Structure formats: structure tokens, C-alpha cells
């Protein structure tokens, strides 16, 4: 079944395409290629995991895929559009509308209610103020936190905090959801719940990119992209 889904999505247009990406870090006289000619494509509606030993370039790849960092050379095509020379403002706008981030550390604002945390991306988009609260409540209900609207992060368990973070990632209805070790700080039960949410989102035809060092977790995706020493070793497209 996984195979057939994978085949089916291959026929659709890639939502994200990386072409020959090189990322070089320089420290003093030595240069180091964190990514060394990486080409990857990810299709609309696909659930992909990116994995590899630590230090192999997974984080760097995620930053470039997440438009948080610019490649030294190569092209990043998002919905067919080359974003390699976007300026900071255009990148910020794209991150806001097209991407949703879920981090290992949750990264919620402290002393701030769940609804306010969830509505934070709306602050930077065109959504009128009156629609923000209803939208945040809707998202929190979707992740099963309809009864914790006013709670601050300190009043929520780790799993609940991560669900708030997922609601925040979903609020602008992004094309792609990027999750960086989303269960890394959670116990196995909460981790399972979070993964279930990702599967649910996948069933709703969202594109999900899961970055993890945990092979068991990576296997839950349709396709596993493995990166080693800055090069892709399996399933680039």
C-alpha cells in the first residue's frame, strides 16, 4: 500500500524540489561542505522522512528546505518557483504562508495562552483581528485541546505543548509541514499521539517532512530520504 501511494504521488508535480544544493561552512582556513550536491524532490501530499547519522547534514538540509537558510549554490524550487534569491522579507512571507514548523523544543511563548500562541503566525499575515481567535480555537480543537484554550505552556504537559505547536503550524493552512524531531522531548505515549496527528494530517493530503535520527520513527513515513556525509544515499525523488 505504501508503495502504491508513493507511486501515485510521484506522478503529481513536486511541491518542493532541491537541485544540486551545496552548503559550505568556512571556519578559518578550512572549508566544509555540509551538503554536497543534494537533489531532492517532494511531492504534494507526500509524507517523507529525512534521516541520517547526526552531523551528516540533516539539520542543514532541513534549514534549507524550511527556507531558514540559503544554500551556497543550487536551486530551491517551491511550487515550481525558484526562491534562491528571495530577500529576507519574501522568505519570511513564504515561511508564514506556505510552511508550518514543529520543533523538538516546542518553542511556545512562555506565560502566553494556548490560543495566543496558536494565533502568533496570523500576526504576520493578512488575517483580520476578528478572525484570529475563532481560527485559533478551531485549530486547538482539531488537535484535541478544545478544553485548554487559556492554559499557558507551564500548565500543559509536553505532549499537549507539542499539540499547541502543531495547531500553530496549521493555522495558516500551509502546503508543507516541517517537523524536526517532534517527539524527541516526549515520552513514548505522547510521542505516539503526536505521530498519530501527523498521520491524520497526511490523510488530509498535507505534505509532511519529518526530520529525525530515530529510524523507527522515520519508517512511519511513505519514503525515507537518507543523508550521509552531505550526500543523499537513498530515495531522492
Amino acid at each position, binding site marked *: 500500500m505504501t508503495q502504491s501511494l508513493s507511486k501515485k504521488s510521484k506522478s503529481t508535480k513536486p511541491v518542493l524540489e532541491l537541485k544540486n544544493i551545496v552548503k559550505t561552512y568556512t571556519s578559518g582556513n578550512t572549508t566544509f561542505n555540509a551538503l554536497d550536491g543534494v537533489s531532492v524532490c517532494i511531492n504534494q501530499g507526500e509524507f517523507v522522512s529525512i534521516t541520517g547519522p547526526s552531523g551528516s547534514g540533516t539539520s542543514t538540509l532541513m*534549514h534549507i528546505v*524550511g527556507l*531558514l*537558510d540559503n544554500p551556497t549554490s543550487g536551486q530551491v524550487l517551491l511550487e515550481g518557483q525558484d526562491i534562491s534569491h528571495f530577500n*529576507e*522579507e519574501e522568505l*519570511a*512571507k513564504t*515561511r*508564514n*504562508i506556505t510552511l508550518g*514548523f514543529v*520543533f523538538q*523544543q516546542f*518553542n511556545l*511563548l*512562555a*506565560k*502566553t495562552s494556548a490560543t495566543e500562541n496558536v494565533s*502568533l*503566525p496570523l*500576526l*504576520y*499575515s*493578512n488575517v483580520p*483581528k476578528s478572525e484570529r481567535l475563532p481560527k485559533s480555537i478551531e485549530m486547538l480543537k482539531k488537535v484535541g485541546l478544545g478544553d485548554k484554550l487559556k492554559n499557558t505552556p507551564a500548565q500543559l504537559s509536553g505532549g499537549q505543548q507539542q499539540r499547541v505547536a502543531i495547531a*500553530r503550524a496549521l493555522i*495558516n493552512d500551509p502546503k508543507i509541514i516541517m517537523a524536526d524531531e517532534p517527539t524527541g522531548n516526549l515520552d513514548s505515549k505522547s510521542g505516539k499521539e503526536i505521530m498519530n496527528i501527523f498521520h491524520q494530517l497526511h490523510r488530509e493530503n498535507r505534505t509532511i517532512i519529518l526530520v529525525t535520527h530515530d529510524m523507527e520513527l522515520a519508517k512511519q513515513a511513505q519514503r525515507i530520504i537518507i543523508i550521509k556525509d552531505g550526500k543523499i544515499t537513498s530515495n531522492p525523488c
Partner: protein
Amino acid sequence: MLKPSLEDLIRSSFRSVLKNKSRTILTSLGVIIGVTSVILLTSIGNGLKTYVNQQFEALGSNTIFVSPGRIFNEQGGFDRSGAGGYISTSFTQKNINDLKRQLKTNLVIPMTTVSSEVKSISNKKNVSIVGTTYLYGPNNNAEPSAGNGRWFTKEEEDKNSKVAVLGYDIANELFPNGNALGKKIIVKSKNLKVIGVNDKKGSSFGGPSVDEFIYLPIGIAFDIIGNENIQEIIIKAPDKSQIDNFKERTTDVLLKRFDKDSFSVFDSAQLLNSINAIIGTLTIALTGIAAISLVVGGIGIMNIMLVTVSERTREIGLRKAIGAYPRAILLQFLFEAVILSGVGGFIGILLGALGTIAINNFFPAKITLGSITLAFGVSFLVGIIFGVAPARKASKLSPIEALRYE
């Protein structure tokens, strides 16, 4: 185009500032102290000015003074060699008569002053004795009010009657048991009868208080001093519009006897302007010193904002990751700094206003809209100036670095 809207940004900044209330207050303390002292000092300056103006109004705005020496310089300030300096000129009765004739007025009032010991039965004290005429009291608000006796008459002056009018304070000091009227005082072995006690006038800044003066008919004063030198002449013009004309004619008369640097003819407005100029300069200087604490307060805000930016590196990274562009971050942190200084300015104005009300009980002080606006404006400016550097630092953080920050 601006996203988030200004309103959203300001609300967001307010929330961040309110999350840490004690820090907000402590950070604003520098600005609070600065603004409070600026408000207090300008209030005192303004109060002084108003007070001086009222005093001069009471004195009568149609009064012309003739003094020995050069008192004013060309710029309208006090001349260095004049007031308080060595004065050799003195006027005579002949000058008075000349002036009366030329100006066609009787209100040319000579004054002579000497410091001397005065004794009553129970006490003695060194005071200023002023010799003048029967016209001085009625024309200078210096008459005792009903029940406290009277000013001396023309007859008493002509006959060199041994009478005296006491200032309010000196009367109380010489006669602590009250009612000085009709009692005797001794000045240089002359027995004088107290015929009046003036009302309390209050101090006139640093100078000798008129409440400490003793007024005598000028002839008696001449006897006590041992010469007939007149040290000051007061001339009353019929109304304000005649002042310039009277001053010119007075100067013309005196120039026949004295050279131009050895006497000064001036009116109360001129004197008032000079005093106001001095108070103004003093107020600006003191306010300037107080403003230094505003700068110190601004540095405190900058310091805390830099700490805040470091502390909230992760938050900044997150905001950038979810779509905040650099300018949104810059404005948010800039507004936070401005809120800190604005809150400080607001509290400072409140404290300054309360302090002004308190001070006003024993010293003239008056708060003005101008000083409030200035203090508020300056505190906002301080927030902007000292908030820009930390805010720029925040806006330039790379989102990855910021998210990685532990």
C-alpha cells in the same frame, strides 16, 4: 503593507513588557527619577517667576528707580561693576528738588538706608534702617493696615518727629510680647516712638526682607547716619505709558550733575526682565543637570533591552521561522523600549506633579503644560534612541542561530 499592523505590534510589545512587571518598573526607575526631577525643577523655576511677577505687580508697574552706579549692561543683564560693587555716587536733596520741578510731580521719593543696632526695652538687633518721606508708604503698598497704626505724616517729617514704622518681623522680634504700637525703640541713642507696624510681606529671594526694615522720616535718618546722602530715588509716573518719557527726562536732569555711568534709571519692568532672565537661566541649568539622569535612565533601558534580546533569542528565532520579517522584530523591540521609557515618563510626571503640590506649601512652585509635554517627549525620545541598538540586534539574528540558542 505593514504587517503586523502598528496596533498589533504595540499590543504585542505591551504584553511582553507586562510579563515581567518588576523588571519593567526597575528599568523605568531611571527615567522616572529623571522626569520627576525635570518636572520639579521647571515647576520651581516657573513658580519663582510667577511669584516675582506678582511681587512686582504689587510694587506698581509705574515705578521708576534711580540708583547710583551702572546696574544694567547693554544686554539687559546686570552689570558686573554695578550692583553690589563699589558705589561712590549719592544723590542730594537738590537733585530731588530739580527732579520734582522738571517732572512736575511731587512723587519723587528719596531713600537712604543704613544698617544699625536697634534696642527695645527687652531686645536688641541689627537691622536696616530706611529713611524716606511721608509719600513712600501710601505709594508703595507699605502702609500699616487698620489697627496696626499708620505711616508718618508730612508734619512729622517736616518737624523731624522721632517716630518709626516697623516691618512685621522686626516688630515681633523687638517686642515678643506683642503690640509694639506706642512703644519706644532706641537707635544710636535716639528715642523713637513706634507709630505703625507694617503687614507681613514675605521674603524677597536672598535679599533683606522688608519685614526686617525700620522706616523713619528721612531727616531723622540723616541725623543717625551723620550725612545727607540719598542712596535711591523712587519716582512714580502717572501711568504706564509715561514711564519712558519720565525715564528720559530724569536721565536728562541727572546728566547735568553726574556722568552717565555713575547712576542708573530703570523701571520695574526692566528689573523684572533681568530677574526673569536670571531665573530662566538658572532653571535651564538645573533642568539640564536633571536631564543627565534621563540619559542615565536611557542607558539602563538599553542595557535591559540588550539582556532581553539575549534572553529571548529563541522567541525571536521562532517568530522569524513563522513569518516575522526583520522590520517586525525591530519595531516590536523598539516599541518595548519606548513603552519602558514612556511608562517611566508617565510615572515621573505623576510624581513630579505630586511633588510640585507638596513643595508649593512652602515654596512657590507651579507645574506647566509645557514642562509635562517636554518631559514626556524627551522620555519617548530616550526610548527610541536607546532602543534602536538592541532592536537592530534582535532583527538581525539569523533564525537558525536563534532557534539553536540554549
